[in-house]
């Protein structure tokens, strides 16, 4: 039977929801599931992890060096712990993508990146070519399967469990060649585009930088992140970190609202895993309507205020 270790992502206090999605993947593999929390303290994180349904045990590896999520510091500890497991999973977030390959290499194991489906405990499906093809891959059983979990493909494991929390020491020498300095958070209170469950994006049809205010307004009403098409970025309406698409961010929110976006292939590649896509566009023949679940044809400057009003009626 499989014995699976899930590496928790957290900020020191709160468990990141991507962890619960990785637990879902572990449940699909089947077996005993432990969660490892590397932190300076991590008590609150461990309590949250212990509430996830299906988890057997939470390991708390607390030491001062684990304060910041440094791959060079965490990977040797993960590699050491991995010897007791058949699988080590981490969410395929920037945290998991950074730390897990380093741990896998230390354990002399290949890694399966971005697991979207479990076929059997050693066979997985993963996207390649920006999701334009799906590969089925088989990982060797020895020494251990290392895999990152594509969070957009998994629903978070629910709460309601009551796993035990165990303090664990992992004896390894840790390097001092890598030093965490700081995290500069985006100044806005809006959710992060990459991980937001709702996203409102604007395209060339929005018309100008000033007009983008209507997109921000709707996003704030919905508690959504703001995105943009490449055309809107190239036109200078918004900075390029908001770009959604093949060369920007590839996202999979529960709700994606594309406003004034025609739907170029490169944009569609970035959103096609969204659960529900809504398109609002003046041109009823725009390609975006071929992928949207729900569409509205009309003037966005008229429809968006109406939409806000309707949402207020809730």
């Amino acid at each position, binding site marked *: 039977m499989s014995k699976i270790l899930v590496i928790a992502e957290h900020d020191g206090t709160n468990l990141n929801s991507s962890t619960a999605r990785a637990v879902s993947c572990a449940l699909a593999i089947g077996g005993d599931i432990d969660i490892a929390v590397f932190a300076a303290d991590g008590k609150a994180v461990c309590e949250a992890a212990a509430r996830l349904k299906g988890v057997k045990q939470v390991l708390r590896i607390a030491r001062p060096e684990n304060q910041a999520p440094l791959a060079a510091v965490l990977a040797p500890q993960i590699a050491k712990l991995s010897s007791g497991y058949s699988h080590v999973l981490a969410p395929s977030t920037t945290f998991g993508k950074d730390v897990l390959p380093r741990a896998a*290499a230390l354990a*002399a194991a290949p890694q399966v990146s971005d697991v979207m489906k479990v076929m059997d405990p050693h066979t997985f499906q993963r996207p390649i070519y920006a999701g334009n093809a799906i590969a089925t891959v088989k990982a060797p059983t020895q020494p251990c399967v290392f895999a990152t979990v594509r969070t957009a493909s998994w629903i978070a494991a629910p709460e309601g469990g009551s796993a035990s929390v165990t303090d664990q020491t992992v004896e390894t020498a840790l390097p001092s060649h890598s030093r965490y300095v700081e*995290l500069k958070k985006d100044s806005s209170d809006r959710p992060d585009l990459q991980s937001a469950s709702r996203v409102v994006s604007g395209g060339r049809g929005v018309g100008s930088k000033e007009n983008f205010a209507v997109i921000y307004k709707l996003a704030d009403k919905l508690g959504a992140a703001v995105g943009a098409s490449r055309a809107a970025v190239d036109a200078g309406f918004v900075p390029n970190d908001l770009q959604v698409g093949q060369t920007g961010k590839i996202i999979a929110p529960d709700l994606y609202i594309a406003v004034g976006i025609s739907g170029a292939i490169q944009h569609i590649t970035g959103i096609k895993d969204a659960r529900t896509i809504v398109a609002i566009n003046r041109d009823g023949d725009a390609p975006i309507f071929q992928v949207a679940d729900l569409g509205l044809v009309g003037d966005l400057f008229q*429809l968006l205020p109406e939409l806000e009003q309707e949402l207020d009626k809730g």
Partner: protein
Amino acid sequence: MKILVGIKRVVDYSVRIQVKKDGSGVETGGVKLSINPFDEIALEEALRIREKRMPAEVVAVSIGPGDVQQQLRTALAMGADRAILVETAEAVQPLMAARIFHELAKRENADLVILGKQAIDDDCNQTGQMLAALWDRPQATFASAVELKDKTLRVTREVDAGLEVMDVDLPAVVTTDLRLNTPRFVKMPDIMKAKSKPLATLKLAELGIAPAPALEYVSYAAPVPRSGGHKLESVQALVKELRDRGVLS
């Protein structure tokens, strides 16, 4: 200062990917092949560091069949001082690529290895991290800004929560994100000049590297296409539909 840069040849980003009918792979015959875009950014960053910190040497490294020389010539035309091709006909997965780069980093006594954060074909996002592990050196992945200070690099990293800043001691491995820089265009005279720059070819078998454990790629399939839904007549109908589907509360 010596900087190694990884150059991977991939199917050009503009090519529409087709999965072969028998599911054995992706059509690569006759399609345009280019340098992985993240690797071009890696090379550009190495050239910028060299411009600020002479004397420095930028070595472009690729792994692949003999005709990958073409992409290495492009790297030389962009400004790399010399190139190394590790020749193999076999597909090389990230752990093996990391072992090869580790061997070259040792042989070349590299101070810095800059790689793309991922290749746009297999989208693995592993090689830099694995190289740093084997080399027992720092890694700064998904870099959007790099600042060299004596023997330390200050790297700004694009992480989900914002921008993370870290310091790493050299030698180190950096992997590039899209916003790090905009690669320069190659000019005609540079293409001519690149023809006389040194390009060494090493057979993979001669490097004496143990084959790394690898994944077996069993089959390939096209993604399930998304079918369009329907257009609604009013904002009211839209909100109702979203509530009925449980997308909005």
